[in-house]
């Protein structure tokens, strides 16, 4: 249920503008990988190339390869829709579907792709909500609109929605940045438990959060303003936070810039 992602020599563009340059990295299965770095260095852009969401943006394109357990995601003939079904994504701001109930939000991925058996749907809904640590809070009001929940609950609903389609990899772009500390802790706790089943990648601006939840950490930076972002280094989280090999990483982590 969880696969390895290999990225090699990846360049990411918005039209003629090169946003991210030459990234090579390996994301291990059943682990949490954190992406850190100053604003605008291309963390979100790079993350979105991992499930081919980048090309949804007009002008968005990539060069290089991304493989999922040695299957090339950008090979000709690969359907981006199928890729996204395998690699789920949670966004910075909770975005439940406003016209759907809590239940239908969780099941959106299945129902929109034609699954109809009530037993399967009910079973998936409960399992996903339990996995997202939301079941107890919503089990009595599954018919209520998804947007009637609090921000933190909505974000957990979005996580439940993402894992309901049983992806191999779960990408999260600053999943806690719109949330209060309590909800943040709930999500962090959840991330820690999700790695038992999924390959998880988390973008975060919060160093403590990266240190708390992740097994390995990748530090991105801009070579200079106007230049594309690049991967400075990637290692075990413990190593990155204690003895990084690059000076800029240490400066960034200790808060001297960024």
């Amino acid at each position, binding site marked *: 249920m969880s696969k390895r992602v290999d990225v090699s020599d990846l360049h990411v563009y918005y039209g003629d503008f090169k946003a991210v340059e030459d990234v090579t990295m390996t994301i291990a299965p059943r682990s949490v990988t954190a992406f850190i770095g100053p604003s605008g260095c291309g963390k979100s852009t790079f993350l979105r190339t991992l499930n081919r969401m980048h090309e949804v943006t007009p002008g968005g394109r990539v060069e290089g390869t991304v493989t999922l357990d040695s299957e090339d995601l950008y090979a000709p003939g690969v359907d981006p829709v*199928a890729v*996204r079904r395998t690699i*789920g994504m949670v966004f910075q*701001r909770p975005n439940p579907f406003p016209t759907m109930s809590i239940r239908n939000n969780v099941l959106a991925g299945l129902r929109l792709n034609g699954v109809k058996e009530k037993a399967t749907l009910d079973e998936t809904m409960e399992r996903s909500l339990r996995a997202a640590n939301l079941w107890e809070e919503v089990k009595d009001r599954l018919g209520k609109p998804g*947007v009637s929940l609090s921000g933190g609950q909505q974000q957990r609903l979005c996580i439940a*929605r993402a894992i309901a389609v049983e992806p191999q990899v779960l990408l999260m772009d600053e999943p806690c940045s719109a949330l209060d500390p309590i909800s943040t802790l709930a999500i962090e706790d959840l991330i820690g438990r999700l790695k038992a089943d999924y390959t998880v990648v988390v973008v975060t601006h919060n160093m403590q959060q990266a240190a708390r939840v992740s097994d390995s950490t990748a530090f991105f930076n801009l070579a200079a303003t106007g230049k594309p972002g690049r991967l400075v280094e990637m290692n075990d989280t413990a190593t990155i936070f204690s003895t990084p090999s690059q000076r800029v990483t240490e400066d960034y982590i200790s808060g001297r810039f960024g």
Partner: protein
Amino acid sequence: MSTLLRAAPAPRTTALAPGRSRGRTLRSSAATALIWLAFAIALVPLVWIMWTVLSRGLPSMLHLTWWNKDQSGVGPAGFDHQVRGARHAIVGTLLMAALTSLIAVPIAILTAIYLVEYGRGRIARIVSFMVDILSGVPSIVAALFIYAVWVTTFKLTLVPACASLALVLLMIPVVTRSAEEMLRLVPNELREAAYALGVPKWKTILRVVLPSCMSGIVTGGLLGFARVAGETAPLLLVASYTQFLNQNMFSGSMAALPTLINTNVQFMSSDPISADRVWGAACTLIVLVLAINLAGRLLGHLTRVKS
């Protein structure tokens, strides 16, 4: 405004807020008075029209015969002293507007979806430009076009549906623009959320984007319906009036409220009965358009998705 002022009285003593000078207060009051005056002047014709039409038209409208009889059995307009009904014209107006909507709304929604969701570059710009041009076409020209194509080119006889075809040209840009606006209001995040679940684009549009803005699109459709129901010029050109109720869009003549007015208005000054018909029809048209408008807004309000 006033509660705000009361809650925080201006500290007149501090240097930063020395209170208003007398001149400024005076100028402010003068400007306020001027604005109210302009507002009142703008309101005069509106109230006048409403009052005239309602006071003269309501009495005819309040008879049951107005709603369930047509003008059959009434002699040449005017001279036999009975108002009788406008059923033929009311039904005609509604039927024509309904057929118009049936054709125009799907085209308009598909065009809007193309422009917002798929349109990129040159072709989209051209389509958008065409919609602009269409919305600038005078209604009489739209009718002339249908007349030319139908009668001159294809040598067919005019049927009531021709009026609908002319109205389609007027309705498409209105509904396209409002649907476009509604589609653009749907946050991109919702589309991305669906894509990230592995939902194909067409299904995302059909099952996520459209439901999120359906109330707005329906409201736009009803407003378009109200607009073409009140449209007159095309009817004068391609829809010939008849005294009798006709419910077949594809044969004969069909009355509409504007053409009922047009037929009777020439006898208005000499014949009070004709005048009653004219005012009754005018009043009915206003009430009809108003009711559809209100229904549209109400529907939009009730089904709006809260987020």
